[in-house]
C-alpha cells in the first residue's frame, strides 16, 4: 500500500513537472505579446517544436514545392515586404503567370480563423493546398511534393527530428508549414513600444494620426492587431475588376465584394494595396476612404461618417497626412529582419 502511494505521488509530481516544462518551452517558441489577445489557432493539435518550426521554414523556402522547382512560398511572401510580393499588384507565380489577387501579408496568423481574401479556408493547416494546386501559383500536387521530399536526402532527417520518424505525410508537411508561419509574430513596431511605455516617441502628426485611426478606422482595423479578421466591403470601385470576394465562397449576394480586413501592421512596406493591388501608395489608400463607392453591400460603417454624416470617412488633407504618418509607425523592423524568419542558407 505504502509503495503504491509513493508511486502514485511521484507519478503525479512528474506529470505536473512535465506539464510546466512543456508550457515553458511553448512560451519560448510562441510568445503572446503582453498587449495582444489570446491566439485562436488550436496549438494543442499541432504543438510547436523547434525542429517542427525549422522543418516548416525549410519547406517554406523550398522551390521544390512547385511543378518546375522554381517557385517557393517565399517567392510571393517576401520577408522584407512584410511577407507580401514586393511591388506586384497581382502576384506572379510559376511560368510568370499572374494570379487573381495580391499576395497577402503573412503575420500574426495565430489570431486569424479564416484565410485568403475571401476567407474560403477555415484552417491555416489546409491553406498551403491553395497555392500548391493553383495553376498560376505552384501548379503542383500534394502527392507529387511528398514524393519529391522523400527522395531528397535532408527531408527524412528533418521529418524525424520534427515528428520522431522519417515518414513524410501530408499531415506532417502541412503542420510543419503552419508551425513556421505561426511564429511570424509582429509586435515590436514603434507603436508597440509606445503602447508598452518603452520610451518610443511620436511626432505630433503621428499622434494625431493615431487618434484619427482610433476614431475612424478601428471599427474594422482595431488595435492591437489592426484587423478584426472580418469580411467587409470597404467601397472599392467594382468597375476596376469584378472579383466578387466572399460571395465566391458562400454564393450569398450579401457577401458580394466582401474581403478580409487586412492588418495595418507593416503596411508601409507591403505596397501595392487591396486584394487586387490597385493602390500603390498609402496616400491613395487613405484618400480612397473619403470617396468610397456606394454599392449594395458597402459596410454600414462607411455609409455615413459618424461626425459629418457624409458617405465614406471625412478627412481633411492634413488629417490624411497624419494618418499616413501614423501608419508608418507600424513598421516593425525587428520582424522584417528577424533571422528566424529568413531563408536558412546553411542547408
Amino acid at each position, binding site marked *: 500500500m505504502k509503495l503504491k502511494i509513493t508511486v502514485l505521488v511521484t507519478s503525479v509530481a512528474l506529470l505536473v513537472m512535465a506539464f510546466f516544462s512543456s508550457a515553458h518551452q511553448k512560451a519560448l517558441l510562441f510568445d503572446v505579446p503582453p498587449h495582444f489577445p489570446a491566439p485562436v489557432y488550436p496549438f494543442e493539435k499541432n504543438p510547436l517544436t523547434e525542429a517542427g518550426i525549422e522543418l516548416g521554414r525549410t519547406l517554406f523556402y523550398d522551390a521544390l514545392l512547385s511543378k518546375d522547382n522554381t517557385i517557393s512560398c517565399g517567392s510571393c511572401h517576401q520577408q522584407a515586404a512584410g511577407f507580401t510580393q514586393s511591388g506586384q499588384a497581382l502576384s506572379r507565380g510559376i511560368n510568370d503567370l499572374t494570379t487573381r489577387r495580391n499576395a497577402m501579408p503573412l503575420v500574426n496568423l495565430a489570431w486569424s480563423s479564416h484565410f485568403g481574401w475571401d*476567407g*474560403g479556408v*477555415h484552417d491555416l493547416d489546409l491553406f498551403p493546398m491553395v497555392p500548391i494546386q493553383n495553376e498560376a501559383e505552384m501548379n503542383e500536387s*500534394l502527392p507529387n511534393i511528398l514524393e519529391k521530399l522523400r527522395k531528397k536526402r535532408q527531408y527524412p532527417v528533418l521529418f524525424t527530428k520534427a515528428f520522431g520518424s522519417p515518414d513524410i505525410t*501530408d499531415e506532417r*508537411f502541412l503542420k510543419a508549414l503552419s508551425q513556421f508561419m505561426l511564429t511570424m509574430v509582429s509586435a515590436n513596431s514603434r507603436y508597440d513600444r509606445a503602447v508598452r511605455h518603452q520610451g518610443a516617441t511620436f511626432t505630433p502628426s503621428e499622434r494625431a494620426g493615431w487618434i484619427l485611426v482610433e476614431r475612424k478606422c478601428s471599427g474594422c482595423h482595431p488595435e492591437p492587431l489592426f484587423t478584426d479578421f472580418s469580411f467587409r466591403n470597404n467601397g472599392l470601385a467594382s468597375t476596376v475588376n469584378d472579383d466578387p470576394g466572399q460571395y*465566391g465562397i*458562400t*454564393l*450569398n449576394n450579401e457577401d458580394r465584394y466582401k474581403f478580409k480586413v487586412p492588418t495595418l501592421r507593416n503596411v508601409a512596406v507591403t505596397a501595392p494595396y487591396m486584394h487586387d493591388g490597385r493602390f500603390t501608395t498609402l496616400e491613395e489608400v487613405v484618400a480612397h476612404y473619403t470617396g468610397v463607392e456606394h454599392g449594395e453591400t458597402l459596410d454600414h460603417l462607411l455609409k455615413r461618417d459618424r461626425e459629418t454624416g457624409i458617405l465614406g470617412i471625412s478627412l481633411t488633407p492634413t488629417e490624411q497626412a497624419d494618418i499616413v504618418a501614423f501608419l508608418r509607425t507600424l513598421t516593425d523592423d525587428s520582424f522584417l529582419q528577424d533571422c528566424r524568419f529568413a531563408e536558412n542558407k546553411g542547408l
Partner: protein
Amino acid sequence: MRQSIFLLLLVSSLLGAFFQACQNNVGTVETGFITLRFDNVAGNQELKLGTSTYQNAVGESFTVSKFNYYVSNFRLKRTDGTEYVVPQNNSYFLIQEDKPESQTFTLANLPAGDYKSVSFLIGVDSLRSLADIGQRTGVLDPGLGTHDAMYWDWNSGYIFLKLEGTSSAVPSAQNNQFFYHIGGFGGGYNGKKTINNLRTITVPFGGDVASVTATSTPKINLTTDVLKVFNGNTTLSIAQHSSVMFENYSTTIADNYAQMVKYTNQTKQ
C-alpha cells in the same frame, strides 16, 4: 491528505473495473460483416468509360470519361425498426468507375441481426469537412496519390461527385466536354451557411432480409444509374449546363443524384 489519496485510488480502481467491463462485453456480442457492391450503370446498360454512348431524357447523346462519388455515414436498419450506425471513422468510401476494387467494400463489426435497409450520404459530412488534416485519412486524404483528387482547396471542402464526359451538345470550342463537379457541405463557414449538396439515400432491400451472423456475410448488390443524374426531379440538359461546379444550380443536380442508387439483389458469400 490520506483521504484524498484514498479517493484517488478508489477512482482509479473503479475506472479499471469499468474498462474491464467494456472489454468483457465486446467479447460476448456476436458480430459479422456486410459487403456492399456499387455497380455503376446507365439505364439498363453497364456503364463503360469512354466507349459507349448513352442518351439522356433531353435526347442528348454522351459518353462518360469519369464517374466518381463519395458514399459515407452508413446506417443499417433492422427488421425490428432499430438502427445500427456504423462508427464514423470506418464510414467513408470513394466509388470510382475506373477502379473496380473501389466498388466493393465490407462493413465490419456489425452486430449480428436481420437487416432490411441501408442508408448513407452521398458526400462527406460537414463535421469531417471541417476536421483537422489528421482526421482526413484514406480516401479523404488529399495527399494520397492513390485516388482521384476530390478536394477543393479554396474552400477546403470535398467534391462529392464528379461526372465528366463528351457530348456533341457541347460546342467543339470546348472540345465537346462536359463536367459536373458537385460539392458543398452546407457551411460551418464563419457561422455562415453555404449550399448543401449532401444527400441521404435510403435503399430498402425490397423485402429481402440480410442476416448477419458470425459465419454468414450477406453481399448487397446496388446499382448506381448515371442517367439519374440527368433525368430526375429536373431534367439536366448538357447543352444548357455543360459545366457545373460550385454554383446554385448544383443543388438541382444533387436532388437528381439523391435518386441514383437502387437495390438489385443479395448474394450469400
